[in-house]
């Protein structure tokens, strides 16, 4: 969908207004969308589309995925959760997944940053060095 500059600007203002203490207030974000859909201001579809994108990107930025070659037990998961929360804050959305392709080790993706300690990662680094 083509979103105009004005719609992007309006969506950005609405998005910024949903922040409280530097964190996105999900309840307020939901209210904003509800209000947009009910009141239908001019260009509301474009505003809603871009608003949704900004929320999606914000959520993606604070989403962490921990992939491991073998399933982690509860204590390991708690330890990782504690360390990541200390680094990235309490509103981090954390998920754990098993990925046998990693062969060994872990790969943690937080937002755009990837910390690859897996065997597969080291092998591909070795291969690319040749």
């Amino acid at each position, binding site marked *: 969908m083509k979103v105009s500059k004005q719609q992007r600007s309006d969506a950005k203002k609405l998005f910024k207004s949903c922040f409280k203490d530097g964190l996105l207030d999900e309840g307020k974000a939901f209210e904003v969308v509800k209000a947009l859909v009910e009141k239908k201001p001019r260009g509301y579809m474009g505003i809603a589309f871009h608003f949704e*994108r*900004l929320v999606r*990107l914000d959520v*993606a*930025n604070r989403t962490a995925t921990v992939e491991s070659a073998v399933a982690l037990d509860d204590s390991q998961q708690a330890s990782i959760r504690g360390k990541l929360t200390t680094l990235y804050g309490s509103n981090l959305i954390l998920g754990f997944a098993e990925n046998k392709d990693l062969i060994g*080790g872990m790969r943690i*993706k937080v*937002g*755009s*940053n*990837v*910390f*690859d*300690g897996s065997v597969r*990662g*080291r092998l591909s*680094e070795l291969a690319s060095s040749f």
Partner: protein
Amino acid sequence: MSNVLEEIQAQIAGAKTTVAKENVGIVREIGDGVAKIEGLTDAMLNEMLDFGNGVTGLALNLEETEVGAIILGDYTSIKEGDEVRTTGKLLSVPVGKELLGRVVNSLGQPLDGKGDIPTTATYPVEKIAPGIIKRRSVSQPLQTGIMAVDAMIPIGRGQRELIIGDRSTGKTTIGIDTIISQARANKAAEEAGDKDFRPVYSIYVAVGQKQSNVAQTIAILEKAGALEYTIVVVASASDSATNQYLVPFAGCAMGEWFMDNGMDALIIYDDLSKHAIAYRQVSLVLRRPSGREAFPGDVFYLHSRLLERSARLGEKYGDGSLTALPIIETQMGDVSAYIPTNVISITDGQIYLETDLFYQGIRPAVSVGLSVSRVGSAAQIKAMKQVAGKIKLELAQFRELAAFAQFGSDLDAKTQAQLNRGKRIVEIFKQQQYNPLAVEMQVAILGGVQHGAFDDVDVEKIKDFQTKFQTYLTDRKSDLLATIKAEGKLSDETTEALKAVISEFKESYN
């Protein structure tokens, strides 16, 4: 055996596992050689991005929620949702003498089918130009071999001289003649074992040209024996706008290597008009705001940062130089258009080629009135200054008088003499393409003009007279030419010798 085992065990125990940190993003949109990527929060401007499968890109647009990147290579294999990672590197190209004689693309990859190029060094494509302290003023001549240029619009090593004109006026020919002239001088010095001679290596950058034209140019250089001193960097019309945008910078990086290593290089950008058009295409697809004639706002900076990298360095920094001959194509002789005025204001002078002169048979079609070299006689050897000092003035006077004389009024002897001299100078400056003249030959011919040797020869026979005079000098009076070359100036003795040779030749010609 147990010692070895213990050592291995100690090494394994002491081994630390390292964690690699990467920054990744997801392709949101791909098309027209441009990708929009979400994520990549750590991407830096002009950073190389890895799209996987050997495809790389350059991050050009760092926006709030996404990164706009141009793709180097085949973008048809990239699709929405692909993962992209930053590399932390700037785009670099291979540099070095190993590239001489080869034809490469904008990434330095060979195109001539002669195998891989075993270079060891790489230089970044985008680099900050040398600062003020590192520079030295231009004082060494760069002989183009074209008499009209070397006599009246002399170019020095480290200068930027623009070649500007309409289509088919001989712009590329001036560039090629200059390359051939450097190659011939390099070869002559090598054969003579001249240790003091500084060879000039050439780089020919073809931007957006037809591949048939590039092939023809390469064939001409090869035939003239100039290709072994030349690097040809090509992004033809069928290459992506990204490659056409990058190729002058890649060529400049190759030239900078010579400059930084104390050598002299010449780079010809053919042509920057097509470069500006390619950059416009890239900017519009990246949705950058457009300005005059739909060019992006930083089109001036595009050419200024490229041409500022051509300089002459001080002795402390190696005394190397990079001379640039950018080419701009005008439409209907309009030098006041956007891109031509931009590049004219950046360069240290221009050689203006006119269509009218071309069709009158004056080739090279150099307009003496509009052409200028801001370095001037500082870039001429003393001998040339002695013989060519007044030529520009005489031609200017001739042009003024010629317009007056066409009304058919009676002319006094002095005016008639000026007209005669002017017509002969115009004839002498006509030169065959791909046939550059050595500087000592030019000095000898212009010395003849100065002493009136050509004044009593019919205008229609001037070219024949000149050709035979050149042959006479080469075959029978090569010692005079060698003296002019060695001394670099016309002493009284040499001047007398030249006059004697001219008289001798004239007798045999008649």
